[in-house]
């Protein structure tokens, strides 16, 4: 596959010369310090409020708050269920004497990645993948690409490999930059801090029978793996839209709408059960690691991974079928 290597190298050169990846790095470099600062302020505020640096007091205070909310008649039932779960988990951490959010670079990275998987990472992935085919249309260079002695599926495959490569690089750089930047403030330790995983939900009850404590570095690795997976699915969906929609702006708009609708739906569709088959409500994979309540009943890690895989395969089939057959008219 010597020619495939040359094709992928071409795509990578274009990606770099278009300064797309550069923009992403800049976005990360600008935003991560902001989040770090925000996190720092939260820590300082908590300290001021409770007059203590003891995380246990902090945690007990939080649990008391949640319990107060739980007893309020105005809290909706779904929230109550979530609160009950949260309280049980917080108590579990308290019993084991482990601070779930002790401030260090690894914890910050873990938290950041967890919060970014639903919208932030999909958005920046979209920036690199949404125009990989449609930009060739808008500049007209698609006509040159497709009149080379290279089959169309090979051209698309080279673009796919490039997108997967840069998606992986983006996930990796997000993790690395998070650690490096937040470490300046929080210190670079925390790799071996225990984190509890395997917390299972059975209705509103929490099952701790399968819980294991893993080192935080291992947990972070699992988290990044899941983030990578959902990022790849987003990249493949963007690639498909890029093939289907000739205008880059329109393609990005559609993807943006879909992603945002995913976060909105996650907050309100608990009673519309079939919505769980939509790919955008399944992106928040890391949620399952720490026993978060899924947006819709009946979703678990295996379910979400299967749904995402099916969407990804469908996107690939559509992309390759359309790309190899369509007439280049403009």
């Amino acid at each position, binding site marked *: 596959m010597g020619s495939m290597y040359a094709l992928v190298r071409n795509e990578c050169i274009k990606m770099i010369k278009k300064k797309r990846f550069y923009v992403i790095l800049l976005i990360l470099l600008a935003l991560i310090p902001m989040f770090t600062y925000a996190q720092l302020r939260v820590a300082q505020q908590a300290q001021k409020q409770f007059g203590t640096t003891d995380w246990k007091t902090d945690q007990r205070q939080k649990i008391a708050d949640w319990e107060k909310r739980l007893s309020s008649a105005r809290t909706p039932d779904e929230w109550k269920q979530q609160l009950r779960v949260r309280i049980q988990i917080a108590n579990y951490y308290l019993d084991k004497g482990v601070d779930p959010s002790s401030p260090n670079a690894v914890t910050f990275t873990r938290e950041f990645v967890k919060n970014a998987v639903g919208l932030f990472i999909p958005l920046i992935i979209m920036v690199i993948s949404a125009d990989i085919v449609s930009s060739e249309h808008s500049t007209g260079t698609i*006509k040159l690409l497709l*009149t080379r*002695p290279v089959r169309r599926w090979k051209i698309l495959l080279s673009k796919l490999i490039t997108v997967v490569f840069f998606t992986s690089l983006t996930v990796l750089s997000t993790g690395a930059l998070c650690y490096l930047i937040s470490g300046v403030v929080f210190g670079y330790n925390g790799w071996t801090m225990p984190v509890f995983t395997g917390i299972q939900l059975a209705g509103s009850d929490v099952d701790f029978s399968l819980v294991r404590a893993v080192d935080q570095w291992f947990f972070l690795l699992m988290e990044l793996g899941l983030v990578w997976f959902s990022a790849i699915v987003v990249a493949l969906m963007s690639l498909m839209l890029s093939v289907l929609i000739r205008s880059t702006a329109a393609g990005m708009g559609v993807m943006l709408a879909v992603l945002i609708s995913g976060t909105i739906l996650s907050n309100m569709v608990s009673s519309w059960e079939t919505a769980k088959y939509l790919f955008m409500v399944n992106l928040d994979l890391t949620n399952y690691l720490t026993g978060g309540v899924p947006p819709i009943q009946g979703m678990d890690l295996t379910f979400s991974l299967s749904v995402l895989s099916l969407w990804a395969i469908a996107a690939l089939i559509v992309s390759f079928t359309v790309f190899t*057959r369509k007439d280049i008219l403009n």
Partner: protein
Amino acid sequence: MTTAVESPRATVLSVNNIKKRIKNKEIIKGISFEVYAGEIFGFLGPNGSGKTTTIRMLVDLIRPTEGTIQICGFDVHAQHDQAMRHVGCIVENPELYAYLTGWENLEHFASMLPDVDEQRIAEVVEIVAMDARIHDKVRTYSLGMRQRLGIAQALLGRPSLLILDEPTNGLDPQGIKEMREFIQRLAADGLSLFVSSHLLSEIQQMCDRVAIISHGEVIQVGSVDELVAQGGQVVWSLAPADQAEKLLAASRWVTALERIDDSHIAADGAYLQAQMNQEHVPQVTKDLIDAGIRLYAVEIKNPTLEDLFLSLTEGERIG
């Protein structure tokens, strides 16, 4: 393949009864022609006649609904790779990556071709005389330079056939002249060229043979000189006008007769303009003189594309 008998030269491009239907509308209604080795083949038609659609089909950007296209004997769709190895093309504008330099663009396309090395890139840069600016970003190039870089790109793979869509479009007179000379030089080196245009004068100055397309059909394929002779216009300045007009109208060679009275020639004088094959002009002129008509001048005018269409389709207007 039947017309190959007419020429001893090898057939580089063979188009066999291609049709294209888009959304139930037949855009191309069965086009056939052949391009032989070493010739400049013109593809002439007004805008919207199906020129670009046809060119896109030649290079497998659009798949014909019916019919076959072969380049150097390879089917452009079924044997895409082999066929494309023999062809270089610019479809419409010379579109390249504006954020790369000229050289990077050439490297990009060279890596998609078998055995094109850095030395070949340098060679084509020299052929199109782009040495001075080749390492600048394409964004900074003028249209003429982009056009030349586009041709350099098309020549990279040492093709047997070069397809150029409206190569002089948007160029200034100097640029047009250079482009024409450049195309003729390439043909002299043995390359076959397929050049489309909507301007007859351009085709006339460059091409050996031409296919004329209108409403998705080829209405004539032949040598350029023959076509021009056939659709030529003749203008007689003469008197008396009435008698001459009657005489010319009766002639079987004369079509589309027009009369413009002009008393500057003589009191009863006029310009009579007609469309006819050039070879009959002496005979018709002799008939006029024999009939006692005073002839002041005879002038043969080169036809415009519109005139050619008129003579070929006998009155059916363009568009």
